[in-house]
Protein backbone atom coordinates (compact mmCIF):
# COMPACT_ATOMS: atom_id res chain seq x y z
CA UNK A 1 0.00 0.00 0.00
CA UNK A 2 2.88 2.38 0.92
CA UNK A 3 4.68 1.56 -2.33
CA UNK A 4 1.49 2.13 -4.28
CA UNK A 5 0.96 5.45 -2.52
CA UNK A 6 4.49 6.56 -3.41
CA UNK A 7 3.91 5.47 -7.00
CA UNK A 8 0.71 7.51 -7.23
CA UNK A 9 2.44 10.60 -5.84
CA UNK A 10 5.38 10.19 -8.19
CA UNK A 11 3.05 9.84 -11.16
CA UNK A 12 1.10 12.91 -10.17
CA UNK A 13 4.23 15.00 -9.72
CA UNK A 14 5.61 13.78 -13.02
CA UNK A 15 2.27 14.48 -14.65
CA UNK A 16 2.12 18.02 -13.34
CA UNK A 17 5.78 18.74 -14.19
CA UNK A 18 5.47 17.52 -17.76
CA UNK A 19 1.98 18.98 -18.24
CA UNK A 20 0.67 15.52 -18.99
CA UNK A 21 -1.58 15.07 -15.97
CA UNK A 22 -4.18 13.79 -18.41
CA UNK A 23 -2.63 12.12 -21.46
CA UNK A 24 -2.60 14.79 -24.19
CA UNK A 25 -3.17 12.19 -26.89
CA UNK A 26 -6.70 11.51 -25.62
CA UNK A 27 -7.91 15.11 -25.85
CA UNK A 28 -6.00 15.78 -29.08
CA UNK A 29 -7.52 12.78 -30.84
CA UNK A 30 -11.13 13.51 -29.89
CA UNK A 31 -13.30 14.25 -32.89
CA UNK A 32 -14.76 17.75 -32.74
CA UNK A 33 -18.45 18.49 -33.20
CA UNK A 34 -18.72 19.13 -36.96
CA UNK A 35 -19.62 22.79 -37.44
CA UNK A 36 -22.77 24.02 -39.14
CA UNK A 37 -21.93 25.58 -42.51
CA UNK A 38 -24.29 28.51 -41.70
CA UNK A 39 -25.72 30.43 -38.73
CA UNK A 40 -28.34 28.78 -36.51
CA UNK A 41 -31.05 31.08 -37.83
CA UNK A 42 -30.00 30.80 -41.48
CA UNK A 43 -32.67 28.24 -42.38
CA UNK A 44 -35.56 30.29 -40.95
CA UNK A 45 -38.48 30.30 -41.48
CA UNK A 46 -38.28 26.68 -42.71
CA UNK A 47 -36.17 25.20 -39.91
CA UNK A 48 -36.32 27.36 -36.79
CA UNK A 49 -33.24 28.56 -34.95
CA UNK A 50 -34.17 26.89 -31.63
CA UNK A 51 -34.45 23.47 -33.31
CA UNK A 52 -31.11 23.97 -35.06
CA UNK A 53 -29.39 24.94 -31.80
CA UNK A 54 -30.76 22.01 -29.81
CA UNK A 55 -30.30 19.55 -32.66
CA UNK A 56 -26.66 20.57 -33.18
CA UNK A 57 -25.50 21.50 -29.67
CA UNK A 58 -27.35 18.79 -27.72
CA UNK A 59 -28.16 15.84 -29.96
CA UNK A 60 -25.21 15.95 -32.36
CA UNK A 61 -22.85 16.89 -29.51
CA UNK A 62 -24.02 13.84 -27.51
CA UNK A 63 -23.31 11.53 -30.46
CA UNK A 64 -19.88 13.16 -30.79
CA UNK A 65 -19.06 12.73 -27.10
CA UNK A 66 -20.21 9.13 -26.98
CA UNK A 67 -18.40 8.24 -30.19
CA UNK A 68 -15.21 9.71 -28.72
CA UNK A 69 -15.65 7.53 -25.63
CA UNK A 70 -15.97 4.41 -27.79
CA UNK A 71 -12.96 5.43 -29.89
CA UNK A 72 -10.88 6.10 -26.76
CA UNK A 73 -11.74 2.63 -25.46
CA UNK A 74 -10.62 1.09 -28.73
CA UNK A 75 -7.49 3.24 -28.88
CA UNK A 76 -6.51 2.02 -25.44
CA UNK A 77 -6.74 -1.64 -26.47
CA UNK A 78 -3.78 -2.92 -28.52
CA UNK A 79 -6.06 -5.34 -30.37
CA UNK A 80 -8.58 -2.67 -31.27
CA UNK A 81 -6.61 0.49 -31.87
CA UNK A 82 -6.41 -0.13 -35.62
CA UNK A 83 -10.20 0.28 -35.65
CA UNK A 84 -9.99 3.69 -33.99
CA UNK A 85 -7.30 4.69 -36.48
CA UNK A 86 -9.24 3.86 -39.62
CA UNK A 87 -11.55 6.85 -39.30
CA UNK A 88 -15.25 6.76 -38.51
CA UNK A 89 -16.46 6.77 -42.14
CA UNK A 90 -14.49 3.62 -42.89
CA UNK A 91 -15.28 2.09 -39.51
CA UNK A 92 -19.02 2.23 -40.26
CA UNK A 93 -18.30 -0.02 -43.25
CA UNK A 94 -16.40 -2.46 -41.02
CA UNK A 95 -18.80 -2.75 -38.09
CA UNK A 96 -18.44 -6.52 -38.09
CA UNK A 97 -14.83 -6.07 -36.96
CA UNK A 98 -15.90 -4.14 -33.86
CA UNK A 99 -16.35 -6.47 -30.87
CA UNK A 100 -20.01 -6.94 -29.89
CA UNK A 101 -19.54 -5.11 -26.60
CA UNK A 102 -18.66 -1.91 -28.52
CA UNK A 103 -20.47 -2.44 -31.80
CA UNK A 104 -23.77 -0.89 -30.69
CA UNK A 105 -22.00 2.24 -29.45
CA UNK A 106 -20.05 2.66 -32.68
CA UNK A 107 -23.08 1.95 -34.84
CA UNK A 108 -25.35 4.35 -32.97
CA UNK A 109 -23.01 7.15 -31.95
CA UNK A 110 -20.69 6.85 -34.93
CA UNK A 111 -23.70 6.74 -37.21
CA UNK A 112 -25.22 9.74 -35.44
CA UNK A 113 -21.93 11.64 -35.74
CA UNK A 114 -21.55 11.07 -39.48
CA UNK A 115 -25.23 11.25 -40.42
CA UNK A 116 -25.77 14.65 -38.84
CA UNK A 117 -22.66 16.08 -40.47
CA UNK A 118 -23.95 14.96 -43.87
CA UNK A 119 -27.38 16.36 -43.01
CA UNK A 120 -26.22 19.88 -42.04
CA UNK A 121 -24.17 20.06 -45.20
CA UNK A 122 -27.02 19.16 -47.52
CA UNK A 123 -29.18 22.02 -46.22
CA UNK A 124 -28.59 25.65 -47.15
CA UNK A 125 -30.23 29.05 -46.88
CA UNK A 126 -29.68 29.17 -50.66
CA UNK A 127 -31.28 25.78 -51.18
CA UNK A 128 -34.62 24.91 -52.77
CA UNK A 129 -35.29 25.05 -56.47
CA UNK A 130 -34.03 22.01 -58.33
CA UNK A 131 -30.85 20.35 -59.53
CA UNK A 132 -29.04 22.43 -62.13
CA UNK A 133 -30.02 21.84 -65.77
CA UNK A 134 -27.61 19.39 -67.31
CA UNK A 135 -26.03 18.56 -63.96
CA UNK A 136 -24.97 15.00 -63.13
CA UNK A 137 -27.67 14.90 -60.46
CA UNK A 138 -30.44 16.04 -62.79
CA UNK A 139 -29.38 13.46 -65.36
CA UNK A 140 -29.21 10.68 -62.73
CA UNK A 141 -32.58 11.57 -61.18
CA UNK A 142 -34.27 11.46 -64.58
CA UNK A 143 -32.68 8.13 -65.32
CA UNK A 144 -33.60 6.53 -62.00
CA UNK A 145 -36.93 8.25 -61.24
CA UNK A 146 -38.19 9.65 -64.54
CA UNK A 147 -38.35 13.21 -63.29
CA UNK A 148 -37.66 15.41 -60.26
CA UNK A 149 -41.31 15.07 -59.24
CA UNK A 150 -40.99 11.31 -59.57
CA UNK A 151 -38.03 11.38 -57.19
CA UNK A 152 -39.83 13.68 -54.74
CA UNK A 153 -42.84 11.34 -54.66
CA UNK A 154 -40.73 8.28 -53.91
CA UNK A 155 -38.63 10.18 -51.37
CA UNK A 156 -41.67 11.61 -49.58
CA UNK A 157 -43.40 8.25 -49.35
CA UNK A 158 -40.25 6.70 -47.94
CA UNK A 159 -39.82 9.49 -45.36
CA UNK A 160 -43.40 9.23 -44.21
CA UNK A 161 -43.12 5.47 -44.07
CA UNK A 162 -40.26 5.41 -41.55
CA UNK A 163 -41.84 4.07 -38.33
CA UNK A 164 -40.13 5.36 -35.23
CA UNK A 165 -36.69 6.94 -35.43
CA UNK A 166 -34.61 6.83 -38.56
CA UNK A 167 -33.32 8.47 -41.70
CA UNK A 168 -34.34 8.78 -45.33
CA UNK A 169 -31.63 8.84 -48.00
CA UNK A 170 -30.92 9.37 -51.64
CA UNK A 171 -28.10 6.94 -52.28
CA UNK A 172 -25.88 5.98 -55.19
CA UNK A 173 -24.98 2.36 -55.79
CA UNK A 174 -21.61 2.40 -57.51
CA UNK A 175 -21.89 -1.20 -58.69
CA UNK A 176 -25.33 -0.83 -60.25
CA UNK A 177 -24.65 2.80 -61.18
CA UNK A 178 -28.10 3.86 -60.05
CA UNK A 179 -29.66 6.21 -57.56
CA UNK A 180 -32.10 4.78 -55.01
CA UNK A 181 -34.15 6.02 -52.08
CA UNK A 182 -33.35 4.12 -48.88
CA UNK A 183 -34.47 4.31 -45.27
CA UNK A 184 -32.64 3.21 -42.15
CA UNK A 185 -33.62 2.83 -38.50
CA UNK A 186 -32.11 4.73 -35.61
CA UNK A 187 -28.62 5.94 -36.65
CA UNK A 188 -27.84 3.22 -39.15
CA UNK A 189 -25.96 4.51 -42.17
CA UNK A 190 -26.43 3.20 -45.72
CA UNK A 191 -22.64 3.36 -46.05
CA UNK A 192 -22.60 0.23 -43.90
CA UNK A 193 -24.34 -1.48 -46.82
CA UNK A 194 -21.80 -0.09 -49.27
CA UNK A 195 -23.98 2.72 -50.64
CA UNK A 196 -22.86 6.31 -51.17
CA UNK A 197 -24.84 9.14 -49.56
CA UNK A 198 -26.14 11.85 -51.88
CA UNK A 199 -28.88 13.31 -49.64
CA UNK A 200 -29.40 12.64 -45.92
CA UNK A 201 -32.66 13.48 -44.11
CA UNK A 202 -33.14 13.09 -40.37
CA UNK A 203 -36.70 11.96 -39.55
CA UNK A 204 -36.16 11.44 -35.81
CA UNK A 205 -38.79 13.42 -33.91
CA UNK A 206 -36.13 15.71 -32.45
CA UNK A 207 -35.47 17.03 -35.97
CA UNK A 208 -38.90 18.65 -36.23
CA UNK A 209 -40.81 18.36 -32.98
CA UNK A 210 -40.65 21.99 -31.86
CA UNK A 211 -42.20 23.37 -35.02
CA UNK A 212 -44.23 20.48 -36.40
CA UNK A 213 -44.90 18.01 -33.56
CA UNK A 214 -46.05 14.85 -35.34
CA UNK A 215 -46.66 16.50 -38.72
CA UNK A 216 -43.71 14.98 -40.54
CA UNK A 217 -45.29 15.90 -43.88
CA UNK A 218 -44.99 19.63 -43.04
CA UNK A 219 -41.36 19.11 -42.03
CA UNK A 220 -40.64 17.44 -45.36
CA UNK A 221 -42.10 20.41 -47.24
CA UNK A 222 -39.86 22.72 -45.24
CA UNK A 223 -36.83 20.54 -46.02
CA UNK A 224 -37.43 20.85 -49.77
CA UNK A 225 -37.29 24.63 -49.27
CA UNK A 226 -33.73 24.41 -47.90
CA UNK A 227 -32.34 21.35 -49.68
CA UNK A 228 -28.96 22.08 -51.23
CA UNK A 229 -29.13 20.47 -54.68
CA UNK A 230 -25.66 21.77 -55.51
CA UNK A 231 -24.14 19.92 -52.57
CA UNK A 232 -26.01 16.76 -53.59
CA UNK A 233 -24.72 17.17 -57.15
CA UNK A 234 -21.18 17.70 -55.87
CA UNK A 235 -21.39 14.48 -53.83
CA UNK A 236 -22.64 12.54 -56.85
CA UNK A 237 -19.93 13.97 -59.11
CA UNK A 238 -17.28 12.97 -56.59
CA UNK A 239 -18.67 9.44 -56.37
CA UNK A 240 -18.85 9.15 -60.16
CA UNK A 241 -15.33 10.48 -60.51
CA UNK A 242 -14.01 8.08 -57.90
CA UNK A 243 -15.89 5.05 -59.17
CA UNK A 244 -16.00 5.23 -62.93
CA UNK A 245 -15.62 7.58 -65.88
CA UNK A 246 -18.53 6.04 -67.85
CA UNK A 247 -21.74 7.95 -68.47
CA UNK A 248 -24.74 6.76 -66.49
Amino acid sequence: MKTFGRWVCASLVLGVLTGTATPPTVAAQNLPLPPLPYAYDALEPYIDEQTMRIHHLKHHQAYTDNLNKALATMRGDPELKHLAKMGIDKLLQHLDEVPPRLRGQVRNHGGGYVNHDQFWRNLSPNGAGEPGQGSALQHAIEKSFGSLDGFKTVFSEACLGVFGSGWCWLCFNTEAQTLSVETTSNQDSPTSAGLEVIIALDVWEHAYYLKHQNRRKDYLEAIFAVLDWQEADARLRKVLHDATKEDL
Partner: protein
Amino acid sequence: MLARASAAKTLLARAGTRQMSAASLAGTFKLPDLDYDYGALEPHVSAKIMEVHHTKHHQAYVTNLNATLEKYAEAEEKGDMATMIALQTPLKFNGGGHVNHCLFWDNLAPPSSGGGGEPSGDIGSAIQNKWGGFEDFKKEFAAKAVGVQGSGWCWLAWDPTEKSVRIVTTANQDPCSTTGCKPLLGLDVWEHAYWWDVQNRRPEYIENSWNIYNWSKVEERFKAAK
Protein backbone atom coordinates in the same frame (compact mmCIF):
# COMPACT_ATOMS: atom_id res chain seq x y z
CA MET B 1 -59.34 3.02 -19.02
CA LEU B 2 -58.11 -0.45 -18.11
CA ALA B 3 -61.30 -1.99 -19.47
CA ARG B 4 -60.90 -0.05 -22.72
CA ALA B 5 -57.27 -1.16 -23.11
CA SER B 6 -58.27 -4.77 -22.51
CA ALA B 7 -61.11 -4.52 -24.99
CA ALA B 8 -58.79 -3.02 -27.58
CA LYS B 9 -56.29 -5.85 -27.08
CA THR B 10 -58.96 -8.52 -27.34
CA LEU B 11 -60.43 -7.02 -30.47
CA LEU B 12 -57.01 -6.81 -32.08
CA ALA B 13 -56.13 -10.36 -31.07
CA ARG B 14 -59.32 -11.65 -32.64
CA ALA B 15 -59.00 -9.56 -35.79
CA GLY B 16 -58.87 -11.65 -38.90
CA THR B 17 -60.49 -14.68 -37.27
CA ARG B 18 -63.91 -15.83 -38.27
CA GLN B 19 -65.28 -14.54 -34.99
CA MET B 20 -64.50 -10.93 -35.73
CA SER B 21 -63.23 -9.65 -39.05
CA ALA B 22 -61.31 -6.53 -39.90
CA ALA B 23 -64.50 -5.27 -41.52
CA SER B 24 -66.36 -5.24 -38.23
CA LEU B 25 -63.39 -3.76 -36.35
CA ALA B 26 -62.62 -0.89 -38.74
CA GLY B 27 -63.82 2.39 -37.32
CA THR B 28 -64.46 0.98 -33.85
CA PHE B 29 -61.30 2.22 -32.16
CA LYS B 30 -61.50 5.57 -30.40
CA LEU B 31 -59.16 7.82 -28.50
CA PRO B 32 -59.82 7.18 -24.81
CA ASP B 33 -60.28 10.10 -22.40
CA LEU B 34 -57.65 10.65 -19.75
CA ASP B 35 -58.67 10.27 -16.12
CA TYR B 36 -56.86 13.50 -15.25
CA ASP B 37 -56.28 16.96 -16.76
CA TYR B 38 -53.37 17.56 -19.11
CA GLY B 39 -51.73 19.77 -16.49
CA ALA B 40 -52.25 17.36 -13.60
CA LEU B 41 -48.87 15.63 -13.97
CA GLU B 42 -46.88 18.86 -13.78
CA PRO B 43 -44.12 19.60 -12.99
CA HIS B 44 -43.05 16.04 -13.87
CA VAL B 45 -44.51 16.02 -17.37
CA SER B 46 -45.81 19.25 -18.85
CA ALA B 47 -49.39 19.92 -19.92
CA LYS B 48 -48.00 20.82 -23.34
CA ILE B 49 -46.56 17.35 -23.82
CA MET B 50 -49.63 15.59 -22.41
CA GLU B 51 -51.99 17.41 -24.72
CA VAL B 52 -49.99 16.87 -27.92
CA HIS B 53 -49.09 13.31 -26.95
CA HIS B 54 -52.77 12.47 -26.40
CA THR B 55 -54.59 14.53 -29.04
CA LYS B 56 -52.04 14.26 -31.85
CA HIS B 57 -49.85 11.19 -31.45
CA HIS B 58 -52.32 8.76 -29.87
CA GLN B 59 -55.13 10.11 -32.04
CA ALA B 60 -53.00 9.45 -35.15
CA TYR B 61 -52.51 5.82 -34.12
CA VAL B 62 -56.27 5.45 -33.65
CA THR B 63 -57.10 7.12 -36.97
CA ASN B 64 -54.51 5.09 -38.85
CA LEU B 65 -55.50 1.85 -37.12
CA ASN B 66 -59.09 2.30 -38.26
CA ALA B 67 -57.96 3.19 -41.79
CA THR B 68 -55.63 0.17 -41.95
CA LEU B 69 -58.39 -2.16 -40.80
CA GLU B 70 -60.67 -0.77 -43.50
CA LYS B 71 -58.04 -1.44 -46.17
CA TYR B 72 -57.45 -4.88 -44.66
CA ALA B 73 -61.16 -5.64 -44.85
CA GLU B 74 -61.23 -4.69 -48.54
CA ALA B 75 -58.18 -6.82 -49.27
CA GLU B 76 -59.65 -9.71 -47.29
CA GLU B 77 -62.85 -9.54 -49.28
CA LYS B 78 -60.93 -9.74 -52.54
CA GLY B 79 -58.65 -12.44 -51.21
CA ASP B 80 -55.72 -10.13 -51.92
CA MET B 81 -53.11 -11.91 -49.80
CA ALA B 82 -50.21 -9.67 -50.87
CA THR B 83 -52.00 -6.58 -49.57
CA MET B 84 -53.14 -8.35 -46.41
CA ILE B 85 -49.51 -9.25 -45.69
CA ALA B 86 -48.26 -5.76 -46.49
CA LEU B 87 -50.81 -4.27 -44.10
CA GLN B 88 -49.44 -6.30 -41.17
CA THR B 89 -46.75 -3.64 -40.64
CA PRO B 90 -49.06 -0.62 -40.28
CA LEU B 91 -51.47 -2.81 -38.30
CA LYS B 92 -48.74 -3.70 -35.81
CA PHE B 93 -47.49 -0.14 -35.68
CA ASN B 94 -50.82 1.63 -35.25
CA GLY B 95 -52.52 -1.14 -33.30
CA GLY B 96 -49.50 -1.36 -31.03
CA GLY B 97 -49.45 2.42 -30.70
CA HIS B 98 -53.08 2.41 -29.61
CA VAL B 99 -52.73 -0.47 -27.14
CA ASN B 100 -49.50 0.89 -25.68
CA HIS B 101 -50.83 4.39 -25.14
CA CYS B 102 -54.08 3.17 -23.55
CA LEU B 103 -51.92 1.28 -21.04
CA PHE B 104 -49.63 4.27 -20.57
CA TRP B 105 -52.29 6.84 -19.70
CA ASP B 106 -53.78 4.30 -17.34
CA ASN B 107 -50.55 3.71 -15.44
CA LEU B 108 -49.99 7.41 -14.78
CA ALA B 109 -51.69 9.51 -12.12
CA PRO B 110 -51.22 12.92 -10.55
CA PRO B 111 -49.28 12.71 -7.26
CA SER B 112 -52.36 14.19 -5.57
CA SER B 113 -54.41 11.17 -6.70
CA GLY B 114 -52.06 8.33 -5.90
CA GLY B 115 -49.31 8.86 -8.48
CA GLY B 116 -45.74 8.15 -7.47
CA GLY B 117 -44.41 6.74 -4.23
CA GLU B 118 -43.42 3.13 -3.83
CA PRO B 119 -45.35 0.02 -4.76
CA SER B 120 -46.84 -2.10 -2.02
CA GLY B 121 -49.04 -5.19 -2.05
CA ASP B 122 -48.25 -8.14 -4.30
CA ILE B 123 -46.28 -6.11 -6.84
CA GLY B 124 -44.27 -4.48 -4.07
CA SER B 125 -43.31 -7.92 -2.72
CA ALA B 126 -42.51 -9.24 -6.20
CA ILE B 127 -40.17 -6.29 -6.85
CA GLN B 128 -38.56 -6.82 -3.46
CA ASN B 129 -38.03 -10.52 -4.16
CA LYS B 130 -36.67 -10.03 -7.65
CA TRP B 131 -34.44 -6.99 -7.17
CA GLY B 132 -33.88 -6.89 -3.42
CA GLY B 133 -35.52 -3.49 -3.17
CA PHE B 134 -37.26 -0.67 -5.03
CA GLU B 135 -34.02 1.30 -5.59
CA ASP B 136 -32.32 -1.58 -7.39
CA PHE B 137 -35.41 -2.12 -9.51
CA LYS B 138 -35.40 1.58 -10.43
CA LYS B 139 -31.71 1.40 -11.41
CA GLU B 140 -32.25 -1.50 -13.80
CA PHE B 141 -35.43 0.01 -15.23
CA ALA B 142 -33.68 3.35 -15.84
CA ALA B 143 -30.67 1.66 -17.45
CA LYS B 144 -32.88 -0.34 -19.80
CA ALA B 145 -35.07 2.67 -20.61
CA VAL B 146 -31.99 4.75 -21.46
CA GLY B 147 -30.64 1.87 -23.53
CA VAL B 148 -33.59 1.80 -25.95
CA GLN B 149 -32.10 3.06 -29.22
CA GLY B 150 -34.36 5.48 -31.03
CA SER B 151 -38.06 4.95 -30.33
CA GLY B 152 -39.61 2.34 -28.09
CA TRP B 153 -40.95 1.38 -24.69
CA CYS B 154 -39.64 0.07 -21.39
CA TRP B 155 -41.88 -2.29 -19.43
CA LEU B 156 -42.18 -3.85 -16.04
CA ALA B 157 -43.76 -7.09 -17.15
CA TRP B 158 -44.94 -10.51 -16.00
CA ASP B 159 -43.21 -13.42 -17.66
CA PRO B 160 -45.70 -16.30 -17.57
CA THR B 161 -43.04 -18.84 -18.60
CA GLU B 162 -40.51 -17.88 -15.95
CA LYS B 163 -43.33 -17.04 -13.54
CA SER B 164 -41.51 -13.88 -12.63
CA VAL B 165 -41.56 -10.12 -13.02
CA ARG B 166 -38.94 -8.72 -15.35
CA ILE B 167 -38.00 -5.58 -17.22
CA VAL B 168 -38.25 -5.79 -21.00
CA THR B 169 -38.04 -3.25 -23.80
CA THR B 170 -39.70 -3.09 -27.18
CA ALA B 171 -38.87 -1.08 -30.29
CA ASN B 172 -41.15 1.43 -31.98
CA GLN B 173 -44.77 0.57 -31.11
CA ASP B 174 -44.27 -3.16 -30.66
CA PRO B 175 -46.57 -4.06 -27.78
CA CYS B 176 -45.18 -5.75 -24.67
CA SER B 177 -46.92 -8.96 -25.75
CA THR B 178 -44.35 -9.36 -28.54
CA THR B 179 -41.80 -10.26 -25.84
CA GLY B 180 -44.07 -13.05 -24.57
CA CYS B 181 -44.67 -11.07 -21.38
CA LYS B 182 -47.72 -9.26 -20.02
CA PRO B 183 -47.36 -5.52 -19.41
CA LEU B 184 -47.68 -4.27 -15.84
CA LEU B 185 -46.17 -0.79 -16.23
CA GLY B 186 -45.00 0.92 -19.39
CA LEU B 187 -42.85 3.97 -20.07
CA ASP B 188 -42.97 5.60 -23.49
CA VAL B 189 -39.40 6.57 -24.44
CA TRP B 190 -40.20 7.98 -27.87
CA GLU B 191 -38.82 11.52 -28.12
CA HIS B 192 -42.34 12.93 -28.35
CA ALA B 193 -42.94 11.75 -24.78
CA TYR B 194 -40.30 14.07 -23.34
CA TRP B 195 -38.61 16.29 -25.91
CA TRP B 196 -40.44 19.51 -25.10
CA ASP B 197 -39.56 19.25 -21.44
CA VAL B 198 -36.01 17.87 -21.42
CA GLN B 199 -34.93 17.65 -25.10
CA ASN B 200 -32.41 14.79 -25.35
CA ARG B 201 -32.04 14.32 -21.58
CA ARG B 202 -33.98 11.06 -21.43
CA PRO B 203 -32.49 10.07 -18.03
CA GLU B 204 -34.15 13.16 -16.51
CA TYR B 205 -37.54 12.17 -17.97
CA ILE B 206 -37.14 8.64 -16.60
CA GLU B 207 -36.29 10.08 -13.17
CA ASN B 208 -39.26 12.49 -13.24
CA SER B 209 -41.65 9.69 -14.18
CA TRP B 210 -41.17 7.92 -10.84
CA ASN B 211 -43.41 10.66 -9.40
CA ILE B 212 -46.43 9.76 -11.50
CA TYR B 213 -46.79 5.99 -11.78
CA ASN B 214 -50.13 4.68 -10.62
CA TRP B 215 -48.92 1.69 -8.63
CA SER B 216 -52.45 0.65 -7.64
CA LYS B 217 -53.26 0.12 -11.33
CA VAL B 218 -50.00 -1.81 -11.71
CA GLU B 219 -51.08 -3.98 -8.77
CA GLU B 220 -54.44 -4.66 -10.49
CA ARG B 221 -52.68 -5.71 -13.70
CA PHE B 222 -50.25 -7.89 -11.75
CA LYS B 223 -53.07 -9.73 -9.98
CA ALA B 224 -54.85 -10.23 -13.32
CA ALA B 225 -51.69 -11.36 -15.09
CA LYS B 226 -50.45 -14.04 -12.68
